[in-house]
Each structure stands twice: as structure tokens, then as C-alpha cells.
């Protein structure tokens, strides 16, 4: 492992317009808007950027489009695309580039207009010969199959799943830019329109527009900037499979490996983490990640989240933005997962700020529980 604990920091973070954006906005409009906001957040200029990381589903060449749009000539670029965890991977790769002297200031940007143009248009469905004839509703049905195994092996219930959605909604009501504005009950989740059993529509993430950007630089440079930084204490990346039929064990994700790497690099343990940002594409995913990242034993995730344990006032703060379930889910949602974890460490979260949040964890998930990437962030006091 070449990457060193705390060698780089996220110094700027911003969302683009979210929810339902203006007609004819493009993903690149949103990436550019978020990039400029993130630069403004840290006091750096466009001309400072010498590394660009971007990938999204509405164009094959996101890096080219963002660089053309803002006239950036990067020394280093990377458009790794492994689904919603791509941006955690980008952060890990940016750290390597900065440590090696291949770059000094990196931007990671994302944008999607999937609500405006429809999900089908934003993310064309691939024909998978050995799956598509059975008409799974992907990705929902893949996660539903994993949930069916978790319920079968460990006694996880639909009520446990619904707890995740209800907790997310409670947090969302404290986030002024969250898409959802009304309270939600367990009964409402259970009785909502069924999508792919055991998931109702309330077990599934939102379909919104949105985007974001973060700026990364060396720890030394971070200390000279106007705002507090979120230092990268640990990163981990792990790839499992591409299709759900080929997932080795439906109840154990590659987060077990990415988390192990990230905690090892950070020299920390789960009990050191004050806030988690876990990719909640479906209500089963935070349950799986709480287990695989070591916050509870395998199989106990459902019981762990019961009785409002991850809601405001619960025993562990998870997805304080309201998550992909209630705040915003513009396709590959991982960059917004990271942004909330950055903001918590910087103390920027207002009403939903977690007290004394010196360490946060952002976990990204891509594909169908396929690619798992973990980032542990800390305030300057943790260095």
C-alpha cells in the first residue's frame, strides 16, 4: 500500500443543482457548476486544477466534456467507471497521483439529469444474455435477490428494511435541499407499491437529477486554505462481480475487503467513526455494509437498525443527508455520499450536524453490489 494516511485532503465540496433541474440542463452543466462552487468553497481557482476525474452514464467521455467546457488542461485524468462507487475510487487514485507528484489539485465531478430525461434515457440498459430473458427489473431485482438470502439466513424482516427508509426520511427532513419533504412511517413503506419483492418503491432509491464536485490537494496545501479540510485517513477498493448471478455469496459484499483496507490504512476501528455515509441504493445495502464494515456481526444488520438506531437521536448517525432514499439519487450517487461525510467532518451540517464528528466514513457501492469502495475522513485533530 503506497497511500499514506492523511497525505491528502478534501478541501472543497459542493452539490450542483439537485432534484429536478432546469429544462435542457446537461450533465456537464451540472459538473461545471459544482466544480466552480467547490473551488469557491476552498478559495482555489480553475487554473489551479491539474487533475480531472469524471465519469457519468450520459456520455462515454465525461473527462473530455468537462475539460472542454471549463478549458482545463489536466496533467492527470481518470474516468474509472465502476458504478456508484466510482468517485471513492477516483479519490483513491487522486491520492496516488498527488503523492507521486503527478498532480497537485484534483477535481472529482459528476452530473446527471436522469429525472429530466428519464432513467431509461440516462442509463441505457445493457442486454445480458444469461439474465435479461427472465426480465429482472435491474438493478432492483438483483438487490432483492440478495435481500431474500439475508432474510432466509438471518431472519431479517421487511420491517427491518423499512427502518432504513424511515431513518433516512427523518434525516432528510433536516436537510433543506432534500427531495422528500414529508414524514414516512414503517407502515407506509410496507404498503407502498411493490417493485421487486421484498422491496416496495419506498425501499428503492429516488430517481432525481443532480451532481457534485470535490477538490483534493496535499495535506500541506490544505492547511494554507481558508476553510477546514477533511483529511483522507484511509481508502479501500474492492471489486466482486458484474452480474448478481455471479456474486460469490449474496450476503457478503466486497465492502468487507474495502473496509478492511481503509481501516488498516487509517489505523482506526469502527468504534472510532462518528458518522457513516453508506450508499443506500436499496434498504438492504446499509444493512449489508454495517455488517461488512464491522459495525455489527454478520447477519445482525437488520436487528441493528431496528427501533430508530440509525435515525436522528439513535445510537449511530447514518446517512444524515437523507441518503439516496430521501435526499437525492442522480444515478451514480457516490459523490454525494462522499460530500456529506466531508461536510460532517468539517462541521458544515447545521441542524443535522453530528456532535464532535472528527471521523466519518463514506462507503460507495456500484453495479449490483459489485464494486465497493470505502473512504475514512478525519478532521485536522486526527492527524
Amino acid at each position, binding site marked *: 500500500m503506497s497511500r499514506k494516511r492523511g497525505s491528502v485532503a478534501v478541501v472543497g465540496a459542493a452539490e450542483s443543482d439537485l432534484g429536478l433541474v432546469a429544462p435542457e440542463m446537461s450533465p456537464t452543466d451540472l459538473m461545471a457548476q459544482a466544480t466552480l462552487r467547490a473551488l469557491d468553497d476552498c478559495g482555489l481557482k480553475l487554473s489551479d486544477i491539474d487533475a480531472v476525474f469524471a465519469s457519468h452514464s450520459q456520455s462515454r467521455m465525461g473527462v473530455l466534456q468537462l475539460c472542454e467546457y471549463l478549458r482545463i488542461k489536466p496533467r492527470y485524468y481518470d474516468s474509472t467507471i465502476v458504478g456508484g462507487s466510482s468517485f471513492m475510487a477516483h479519490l483513491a487514485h487522486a491520492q496516488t497521483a498527488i503523492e507521486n507528484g503527478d498532480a497537485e489539485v484534483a477535481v472529482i465531478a459528476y452530473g446527471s439529469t436522469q429525472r429530466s430525461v428519464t432513467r431509461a434515457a440516462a442509463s441505457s440498459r445493457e442486454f445480458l444474455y*444469461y439474465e435479461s430473458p427472465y426480465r429482472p427489473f435491474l438493478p432492483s*431485482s438483483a438487490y432483492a435477490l440478495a435481500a431474500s438470502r439475508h432474510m432466509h439466513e438471518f431472519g431479517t424482516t421487511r420491517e427491518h428494511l423499512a427502518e432504513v427508509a424511515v431513518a433516512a426520511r427523518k434525516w432528510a427532513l433536516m436537510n433543506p435541499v432534500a427531495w422528500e419533504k414529508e414524514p414516512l412511517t414503517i407502515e407506509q413503506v410496507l404498503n407502498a407499491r411493490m417493485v421487486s419483492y*421484498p422491496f416496495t418503491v419506498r425501499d428503492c432509491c429516488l430517481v432525481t437529477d443532480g451532481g457534485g464536485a470535490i477538490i483534493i490537494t496535499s495535506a500541506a496545501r490544505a492547511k494554507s486554505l481558508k476553510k477546514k479540510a477533511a483529511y483522507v485517513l484511509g481508502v479501500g477498493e474492492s471489486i466482486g462481480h458484474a452480474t448478481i448471478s455471479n456474486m460469490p455469496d449474496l450476503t457478503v459484499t466486497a465492502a468487507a475487503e474495502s473496509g478492511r483496507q481503509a481501516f488498516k490504512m487509517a489505523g482506526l476501528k469502527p468504534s472510532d467513526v462518528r458518522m457513516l455515509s453508506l450508499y443506500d441504493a436499496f434498504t438492504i445495502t446499509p444493512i449489508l455494509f454495517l455488517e461488512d464494515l464491522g459495525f455489527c456481526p454478520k447477519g445482525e444488520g437488520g436487528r441493528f437498525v431496528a427501533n430508530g438506531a440509525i435515525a436522528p437521536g439513535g445510537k449511530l448517525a447514518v446517512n444524515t443527508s437523507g441518503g439516496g432514499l430521501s435526499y437525492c439519487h442522480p444515478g451514480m450517487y457516490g459523490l454525494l455520499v462522499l460530500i456529506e461525510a466531508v461536510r460532517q467532518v468539517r462541521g458544515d451540517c447545521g441542524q443535522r450536524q453530528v456532535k464532535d464528528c472528527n471521523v466519518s466514513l463514506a462507503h460507495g457501492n456500484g453495479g449490483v453490489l459489485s464494486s465497493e469502495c470505502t473512504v475514512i475522513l478525519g478532521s485536522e485533530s486526527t492527524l
Partner: protein
Amino acid sequence: MPNEFAKSPLGVYIEHCKKGELAYQVTEDGKPVFFPRAAAPVTGGKLEWRVSKGLGTVHATTVVHGAKDQKPWNVALVDLDEGFRMMSRVEDIDPMQVKIGMRVKVRMTAGDEKQPPYPVFTAVEGSR
């Protein structure tokens, strides 16, 4: 030099389906492989074709709800007795009654111009 493959892995699989056979591959040391590939995973070695007996066990299951005018349908992962897993659908019963651990047997669909025959499953009598 001629191309190595006269028929693709998928092409061979479909030929078997048209004969009513669920085909899979095995590695040189006998490990089952599915989906069909041009080379063995891990070792990169050669693969041989086999025909499954078509008996298996439901490993995971969901019920997909489509448009309002469509009846919900099953999607399952089935573990074949030869030791490979595939996605399929268990038919002829209420999709909510497809249970993990249920024994199932393969049935080839008829196929049409757009979609060649493909394997689905039905419950083995007395397995519920």
C-alpha cells in the same frame, strides 16, 4: 492463421437450448463454469461442454411487479446439482410461493424469432 473459434460460447449454448439441453462447461480439473466462456476463469485453461441433468435448488428469489396490466413474475437464482448457479424463472406456480430451498427441474421455453429457447424451471413434485 484462421480464427480460433468457429462458434462463440453463446452460440454453442443456444444450439444446446434448441435441442432442449441446458449446457454448461467444466475446467480441465472438472470444476463447473457458468456462464459459458472462451477460456476458464482463474487458470485461463481450456473448457469442455457438458449437458446438465436439469435438476437444482432455488438459492434466492424475488417477484417482479411490472406494468399494471402484467401479472407479477418470478426471478430466481438456481443452484444446479452439477455445482453451477444461474438466473432463471420458476414457472407454473404463484411466484410468491417460490421458496429458497425448493427443488426445481429445467424446462426449455419454445422460443421465437426474437428470442431463442431458454431454460426456465418448474417445481419438482412434492418439494414444497
